[in-house]
């Protein structure tokens, strides 16, 4: 499926901010099942761009604004061909898989999360992960605005609700407590209408099968409607945009994502 992405993030600051630096993990890579036809990042402010790879293999674009900035819009547009691989990810791995068993502050399991994981401990790994994924979807409520990206998995699980990030963190925490390497994926999910945010899900390493994607917010494995952009141990590693600035006061953020099927449209 050919998916067209139009992803805009606008920040507005109460007063002009100086020394703004943004680390953008907004560029997907090619791998089995995903081919990037065109991709560009534009920012409506003067500045320097530097592109590099991080330890996970993500493409990182560093942006250093030239002067004081009171508003900035980061626009990403692109065209990606995706084929359904039933969730199995065939990508270049830059790190040994044991790294993804490392516990991070956002994915530290508490007693409740360990008990959740223990429910599936006796099953074969793939079945266990699939049932975990479905269990999260049916037992947790998807609710926007009650958690934020820095809510730990244990807190969100105790509250019983969250957004896709929390679902992914809970899944990762439970999988790791079963001894399965698991990681966070940020990306896009194709939908018919404009979205308020990008999507996130998880991947776990299944013996003899490799990395397999699980989207606990929807209870399925990624299909051809999923574009995989960045990976990491948790949200903080794979966040689309992380930045620093001096001054600026309060910040307001607006995000819009159009991820639509490009079929039937004239190709630019």
């Amino acid at each position, binding site marked *: 499926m050919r998916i067209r992405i139009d992803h805009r993030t606008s920040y507005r600051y109460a007063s002009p901010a100086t020394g703004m630096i943004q680390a953008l993990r907004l560029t997907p890579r090619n791998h089995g099942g995903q081919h990037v036809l065109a991709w560009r990042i*534009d920012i*409506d402010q*003067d*500045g*320097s*761009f*530097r592109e590099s790879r991080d330890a996970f293999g993500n493409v990182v674009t560093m942006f250093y604004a*030239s002067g004081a900035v009171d508003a900035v819009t980061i626009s990403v547009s692109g065209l990606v061909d995706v084929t359904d691989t039933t969730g199995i990810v065939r990508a270049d791995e830059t790190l040994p898989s044991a790294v993804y068993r490392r516990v991070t502050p956002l994915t530290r399991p508490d007693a409740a999360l360990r008990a959740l994981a223990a429910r599936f401990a006796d099953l074969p790994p793939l079945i266990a992960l699939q049932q975990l994924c479905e269990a999260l979807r049916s037992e947790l409520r998807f609710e926007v605005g009650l958690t934020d990206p820095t809510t730990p998995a244990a807190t969100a699980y105790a509250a019983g609700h969250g957004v896709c990030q929390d679902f992914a963190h809970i899944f990762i925490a439970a999988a790791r407590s079963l001894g399965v390497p698991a990681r966070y994926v940020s990306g896009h999910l194709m939908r018919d209408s404009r979205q308020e945010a990008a999507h996130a899900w998880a991947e776990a390493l299944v013996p003899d099968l490799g990395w397999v994607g699980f989207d606990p917010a929807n209870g399925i494995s990624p299909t051809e409607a999923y574009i995989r952009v960045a990976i990491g141990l948790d949200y903080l590693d794979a966040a689309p945009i992380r930045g620093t600035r001096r001054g600026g006061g309060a910040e307001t953020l607006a995000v819009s994502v159009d991820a639509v099927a490009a079929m039937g449209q*004239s190709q*630019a």
Partner: protein
Amino acid sequence: MLSRTASALLWMGRYIERADFVSRLIDATVRLASLPSSYGGDVAAWSGALAAAGVADAYAQRHDSVSEATALHFLSLDPANPSAMRGCIERARTNARAVRTALTVEAWEAINGAWLELQRFGTRGGGRERLIRLSEAVRSATLAFDGAIHRTMLRDDAFWFIRLGEAVERADNTARLLDVKYHLLLPRDEPVGGSLDYFQWTTILRTVSALTAYRHIYRDNVKPWLVADLLILNQRMPRSLAACTANAVHHLDELARVTGRRGPAHRQAVAMAARLNATNIETLFAAGLHDVVVDFIVENNRLGTLIGEQYLF
């Protein structure tokens, strides 16, 4: 790279492109003007050519009437016309000499060879056949230059500045051609096929060497709205406004990769490309083809200015 060097490279690219355009314009106009005068005649044809080259005012200041001999001379050799083929090649060479070390031997020789060839023609001209030969020589020199930089130059900032100059100038040329001829391209209710119109349209296509391309793409008779579509929106047509703008964005991207910086020129080019991408030919006709083209010329000139500001020319 020094800003002065960047400026010389950019303008060298622009002058070479302009020489190429004027030469194609002459070629197409000679064909049109050689038709019997019931088809519009040579005065109209040459007036249009002078306007498309953007030198109608300069011409009017020096000549009372338009004739093939004076117009042809004015467009090719007249020292009073800075956009004459001679003036373009001369300026391109002056710029090239200033940055000789940034060019390869082949690129320099292509420009210098064209300039030496021009010297043989002097400034007086000497008849239609001779000037047409000159025009052909200029055209093959610009092709040789393009090939030379394509084959021999490192893909670094020098290369991308030359290319950027070409892209901006090419967009300007196509837009000015459309500006002069737009009234011929408006869709009309009555069945098309007046023979004068047919020759006018093919002349437009010939000026941007797109007649064969047109037949490849549309597999149809020459129809005015399709000509407009080809020259404004078709990405595959190297002289269309959309393709030139997309190229400008690409070249600025490459420059940003070298220098690490993006600025106002980049944003302007991206905005222009996005506008052309988001539209179709029906919308352009509804908005008024003439206004669209004039807007584009203004925006494109702004892009030229912003490039100068961004790279401190």
